């Protein structure tokens, strides 16, 4: 599903974000990418969604070589990858349903489809009763669930979650991880980027450890060992 071959990324003037990273994530896997802040985890996410370009190596997502992806192709890539960030990225002037519908509207989807998909994904994340509330009227955990719902509207084959629990307490964080596991059970490949030791240890799934821009450990049933 995701293949990285000798991927390197440098930031000017001399910051080495990633160095000759080799990685293969199979379809349907739940992978945690762990490491301390500034080790290159978010750079990896940015490379996978076409926000940054590699300085060396090759990236293939779902059989599509995105190493030198052209600007007009990036939206097509992003419709196939759901992304969840730590800072939610919700629009406060829109209701929860409108925030989710927005992802379909901007891609030109018809109203009929939007009207049927939005309640479905809101039900998956357990917020079908709060669809007409605004982001500031719900908790952080619920906001993150809305973001996950928004990421699901395009039925992505991959869900990238970059520190999705970073702004949440442990109860809300557990709920989000449960939700990600539920989505993974539906067949979506989930890549969880985190530095939350407890969560990674509880998951007992594949763990890839990044340090100084390099993959230093890859365990099929791993633990956070840094």
């Amino acid at each position: 599903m995701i293949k990285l071959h000798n991927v390197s990324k440098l930031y000017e003037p001399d910051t080495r974000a990633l160095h000759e990273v080799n990685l293969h994530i199979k379809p349907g896997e739940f992978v945690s990418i762990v490491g301390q802040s500034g080790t290159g985890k978010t750079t990896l996410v940015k490379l996978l969604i076409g926000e940054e370009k590699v300085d060396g190596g090759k990236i293939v997502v779902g059989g599509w070589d995105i190493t030198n992806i052209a600007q007009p192709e990036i939206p097509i890539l992003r419709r196939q990858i759901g992304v969840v960030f730590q800072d939610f990225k919700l629009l406060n002037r829109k209701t929860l349903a409108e925030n989710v519908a927005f992802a379909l509207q901007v891609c030109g989807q018809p109203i009929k489809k939007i009207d049927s998909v939005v309640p479905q994904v809101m039900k998956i994340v357990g917020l079908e009763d709060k669809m007409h509330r605004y982001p500031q009227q719900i908790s952080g955990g619920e906001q993150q669930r809305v973001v996950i719902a928004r990421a699901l509207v395009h039925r992505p084959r991959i869900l990238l979650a970059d520190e999705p629990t970073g702004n949440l307490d442990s109860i809300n964080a557990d709920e989000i991880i449960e939700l990600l596991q539920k989505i993974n059970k539906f067949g979506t490949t989930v890549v969880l980027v985190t530095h939350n030791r407890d969560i990674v240890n509880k998951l007992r799934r594949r763990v890839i450890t990044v340090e100084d821009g390099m993959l230093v450990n890859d365990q099929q049933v791993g633990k956070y060992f840094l």
Partner: protein
Amino acid sequence: MISKSVNIFYKFMFILSFLRVIKASVQDVGRNIWLSIATITILVLALFSINLLLVVKIISSETIQAVKEKIDVSLYLKSDSAETEIVNLQSKINALSQVKQVNYISKAEALETFRIEHKNDPEILEALIELGKNPLSPSLIVKPKDTNKYDELIESLVKVEDDIIESKNFDDHKAMITKINLIAEKASQAGLFISALFVIIMLLVVYNSIRVAIYTHKREIGIMKLVGASNWFIRAPYLVSSLVYTFIGVLITIALFYPFLGLLQPYLASFFSDYGFNLISFYNSNFFMIFGLEFLAAAFINVLASLIAVGKYSKV
């Protein structure tokens, strides 16, 4: 069959996206209302100054035309000149290459014209009666073929010697035309400078408005990109906003300029009383050409400014 359905689906999606773009643009103009007002004001000032320039051009060319039509040279003849002598002189002058037409005004016709011209001046009319005879001379009115060759005509007429010529009246019409041309040229230059200044300001203001609009929507643009919105969908609302600004600007300019023409017209009507020149009628008959071209030119400039701003600032 399937590919036809897919095509229809994509066309439908495009139309839907386009409608959403229009909606987003109108919302954008409304949400940044003060910025929109400032942008439209500058646009109106620019368009108004361009229209003023056009009015100056029209009036000056009409004035020059009017003066040219009035240009003639009068040769006053002796009162006792014989009819045959006058006809001979008339054909002699008519033969000159610079002459378009020579009209003979007899003593009686001259008196009649004089009476009509001074019908509201009883003192002059009384003086005429007291004189008891027609004091006016017959004359030949010479119309030039080409007003630009007025000097050559004068030169030729000076050479015409005939005993029946009493005096020659060579008013300096050429100097007058040159003066009008000069004033019109100066006014056009000033107008052009002001218009160019407003166009540059318009470009900068629209550029800045779009930049600020993008800045205020930075978060929204970021999310749009994240969820897979195409660049077209992200950028188009700002381009359409600039077209909305232009359209509103042209409408306001029309709404302001017509009352202005209404104020100007009475003065022009008295100035061009013999020519039936009407600026409002001119604008009415050329409405779509004048305002259509102004809309296209302003839209081009604004879309250009927006394209630069969007290209530079929408990379979130």
